[in-house]
Every structure is written in C-alpha cells, then in structure tokens.
C-alpha cells in the first residue's frame, strides 16, 4: 500500500494503515467473495464508506485476484480507472464512495433486500470515527434497527484522529458505544489490530434482530513508528527517506512474525 501511495504521490496513508487489518480479515476470513462470485446476488457485500482509504482496499482486492497488483501503478494517473476513491469501474468495488456518510444508508438498502429475498447475504461497511459526525449515519442507524437488520455489520475504524486532529477535540461524537446502543444496535468493542478478535467479531452470530457495530480500536498509521497516531499522516505521502524507513520497519515486523510462526 505504501508503495502505491509513494508511486502515485497521493493517498490516505494514516487511515489506510489503520484499516488494513480489518480489510485483510474481511476479505480472507469472512466475506468469501471472489471475482467469480461478484455476479451472484447472494454474495456477501463490503462497502467502504470511508472511501478515502481506498489504497488499502485496492491492495486487498488485488491480492484476492480481482486485478493484477501491477495495475495499481496507474493509481490516480491520467485515464486510470483506479481513482482516488472507490468506484465500480474497479473490479470488486460494490459502490462509489468518497463523500462521507453515504455507505451506511446504502448498506441498509442492501441488507433490507437480502432480508426481503431471504438469501442470507451479510453486509459489511467500514466507517471512520470522524465520519460519524455526518448526520446521515444516524438516520441509517435508526432505520437498521427499525428493520431488525441483523445481517448488517458496521465497522468503525476508531483511530480517534481526523484531518484536523483528535476527533474528540474537533467535534466529539463519543461515546460511540453508548450512542449505537441507544440506536438499537449490538456493540462489539475490539482491538482493531487483533486478527483473531476481529474475525470473531465479524463471524460470531449476531443477536437476532439487532444490527451489529464493531468498534475496532485502531492506530492511525499503524506499523510505521513515526506515522502512528499522528494526524498529519491522514493524507501525508512519505518522502524517499521516510519511505525507506517505513519499509524497513514493516519488513522487520514481518520477519519477526515469520520467526514467531516458525
């Protein structure tokens, strides 16, 4: 992801890194979507409401075989279909997003259709915590509980930062758990970088009749020491030295993981 952002000279680095573990779990353990299943109306759906972190989605889709990774070198280039926010021109993308506060309503529609047709498909959407200040989310939250959409899962990438600074300082929308409970949702609070905990939060059966919100507590810029929990990396692009340092840290972490696994 850092490579394609560096290559494009643009991208949402901080939020991409905070969301990457969530996306990896969804696409590798939960959704069961493949290029072949995209034509199946019964497929599970993922909609990235926080569309700005599109680079994380693109790399996960590439690894799932929706398109060759090399195509991502065209990100944001003239005439590329890899736009800086998700569009359905890219295989695997369900909905054009980027304007915040749209994904949840759209997913209420998808989840409602799944209930009407009794096809059992589940619907997941990823929201930013800063995004939850958009009022349309709460319209959708009310509708989801009204229609008892227990096939709907909203995931909050709760990295506590937005472009201006701490979400609680910009215009606090906390406490998110109590708000969602008050709107009739089941709340699951997890470490958003704990793959096992995320998997369980997504796969454990929901309370019948309640939509689920998974509040994934994450770190913006996760995995790169100087990017972690720093608002300016919201859409910062690393320079050459920063890029080299970031890769060095990530490679070291990977090597550590492989050692542990061995």
């Amino acid at each position, binding site marked *: 992801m850092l490579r394609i952002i560096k290559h494009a000279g643009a991208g949402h680095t901080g939020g991409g890194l905070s969301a990457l573990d969530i996306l990896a779990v969804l696409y590798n353990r939960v959704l069961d979507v493949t290029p072949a299943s995209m034509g199946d109306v019964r497929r599970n759906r993922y909609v990235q409401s926080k569309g700005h972190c599109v680079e994380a989605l693109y790399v996960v889709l590439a690894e799932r075989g929706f398109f060759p990774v090399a195509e991502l070198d065209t990100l944001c280039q003239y005439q590329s279909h890899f736009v800086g926010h998700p569009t359905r021109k890219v295989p695997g993308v*369900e*909905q*054009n997003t980027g304007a915040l506060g749209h994904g949840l*309503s*759209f997913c209420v*529609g998808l989840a409602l*259709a799944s209930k*009407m047709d009794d096809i059992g498909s589940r619907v997941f959407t990823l929201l930013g915590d800063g995004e939850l200040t958009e009022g*349309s989310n709460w*319209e959708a939250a009310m509708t989801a509980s009204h229609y008892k959409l227990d096939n709907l899962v909203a995931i909050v990438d709760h990295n506590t930062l937005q472009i201006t600074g701490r979400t609680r300082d910009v215009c606090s929308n906390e406490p998110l758990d109590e708000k969602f409970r008050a709107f009739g949702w089941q709340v699951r609070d997890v470490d958003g970088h704990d793959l096992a905990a995320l998997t369980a939060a997504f796969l454990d059966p929901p309370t019948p009749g309640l939509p689920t919100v998974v509040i994934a507590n994450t770190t913006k810029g996760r995995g790169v020491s100087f990017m972690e929990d720093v608002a300016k990396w919201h859409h910062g692009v690393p320079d050459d030295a920063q890029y080299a340092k970031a890769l060095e840290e990530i490679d070291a972490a990977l090597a550590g993981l492989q050692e542990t696994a061995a």
Partner: protein
Amino acid sequence: MSAPAPSMYSPAAQQRAAALGLRTGRPNLEVFAETVLELGRQDSQVLVVTSDSRGSGKLVPFGQALPKQIVEVGIAEQNLVGIAAGLGAAGKRVFAVSPACFLTARSLEQIKADIAYSDHPVTLVGISAGVSYGALGSTHHSLHDLAALRAINNIDVVVPADNTETRGAVLAAHEAAHPVYLRFGKAPLYDLPDLGGGFQPRRARVLREGRDVAFIANGETAIHALLAAAELEATAGLSCRVLSLHTVRPLDDEAVLRAAADCRAVITVEEHMVHGGLGEACAGLLMQSGARAPFRIVGIPDEYTVTGSQADIFRHYGISMEGLSRTAADLVATAATRSGQ
C-alpha cells in the same frame, strides 16, 4: 373553513379549453400512484420507498395492497436515497418518493454519488413539485430541481404534462437501465391532445402544429401554452406550435431545433426558476447551433415567489393563457420591428 383555491383557469381559458374539446383529467400524482401499483402487482421486485410521504404521494392504496413492497424510512430524505440505491443495487426496481423540494436539495449528494455516479437504475419521484404547495412558501417549492439535476451526469429528468405522459413515463422508468427523476404536481389537469405517438421516452410530444410561434413547455405549464396557442390563433391569426418537452435531460435536440427553424419565435414555459431549467437548456442548444430565433424564457424569475396558490403564482408570473398570449404577441411584434417588417 378555508376558501377554495382560485381556479387555475380564467373563464376565457375554460371556454377555450371547451372549444378545443379538452377533457378534465386527474392529478398526475394519482396516475403515478395507480400505475406504480399496477407495476407492483405484476412485478414483485417493484418497491416504493417513502419518507413519511405515502399520504402526499397517494400511495396509501399501494401500502395496503402490497405491504411487503413499501419501505418507510421516516422523515430522512438522505437516508431515503441511500437506501433506495442499495435496494436498486440488489436488483430491486425502486421508486423513491418524496416531496421534490426536499428530495432534490436535502439529498442532492446522495442522488449524485449513490444513484447517478454509482449508476443504479433507481427512479426518484419528486412529488408536489414546482409551486404545487403554493402558499406554504419557498421552503416547499422546488424551483431548483431541474437545474440541479441537469448538472448531474447520468440521470434522465422527466416532467410529464398530463395523465398520458405520466403513465408512459412511469412505465418507461420501470424498464430503464439507468437513473430517472420523475417530477409530478398534484393539480387536476386537462388531458392534452396528441398529434400521434403518445409518450415516447426522450422525445418531445407535439400537442399542436404551427409556424409563427413555438411554445416549448413541460409539466403543468403545458396546458397554458396550448390554450395560449389557441387564443393567439383565434384573436391574432398567429399559428402556434406547442411541444410538451417532458424530458429536460437528455433534451430532444432535433425537436427544439426544428421548432426554431420552422417558427418565427420560440417561447419556453416551465414551473421552475428561469435559471438552469428547460428554457436555458433550449437557449444553450439554439445558441450553439447558430439558431437566431427571437426567444423568451417564461418561468419564475430570480426571486422567492409571491404568496398565493399555485394558480395565483402562475398568473402572477404570466404562466396563463392570457400571460403567454401577451408574451408571444410582444415577442412577435418586437421581432417584426427589428427585421423592418
């Protein structure tokens, strides 16, 4: 007890309508609701989505007959459009119904991003459009919707003039592969005469032939243009063409260009602000094609309207048989003076 709204038609206009043999129709909104119920009975994928608007949308019978095919989202228009997009993406044939004033302003970003940009074949239905709500005031008027939606790629914008066009437009929207916006008023209307073809998607409907003045109108103003045409022929010997140009986007370029080529003057009429609607769509086309016909846009000027019923507001701004006849006579006279005739 409130006083009945003043009639939309002067006694002279009513006489003219009688002489043309026009029959009184029903409000377009009722025909919309009836047609969508018929579609819902035939096709279980048809859904109506409402924002506490089933009553004003005449959709109570739909909800009673097909309770599993109506989705209520409450007073939440942004949510209405987002949910409609999701239902459409899942294969439903969705009619999302809300007062035009709220649907196309409050939810404009949802229309743009969730429906049009994402290209889901959802039909948005703006009810009680234009100044249908009359004296309720400018919060409830939609005089911006055609301009706003014309500036958004990938949505047809359709303003039916009578019951025939309404039914045709609803049936076409049910089959459409891309987004559609339908705009309905709620006044009882005359059924308009048809010189052949009925409602054809994206094609102007010819209501009357003529060579002196072309009226290009849509929605609930088209009848007034037709009455003015008959009046001008009877009193001034002017032969007038009247087009119901129900589809503002994409425009039937050929019909507009032909009208400008065949006639000495062109007048557009719409229940919309004069900026950005039917009139400016035609003006832009004519200008770029090099047509130089004397031209007027009749609509609501750049102001919040006077207080009054829809009929009062129409009359105030010259959307009436008498007002349009005067505009046409002035335009023809000015054109004649300029050309030295």
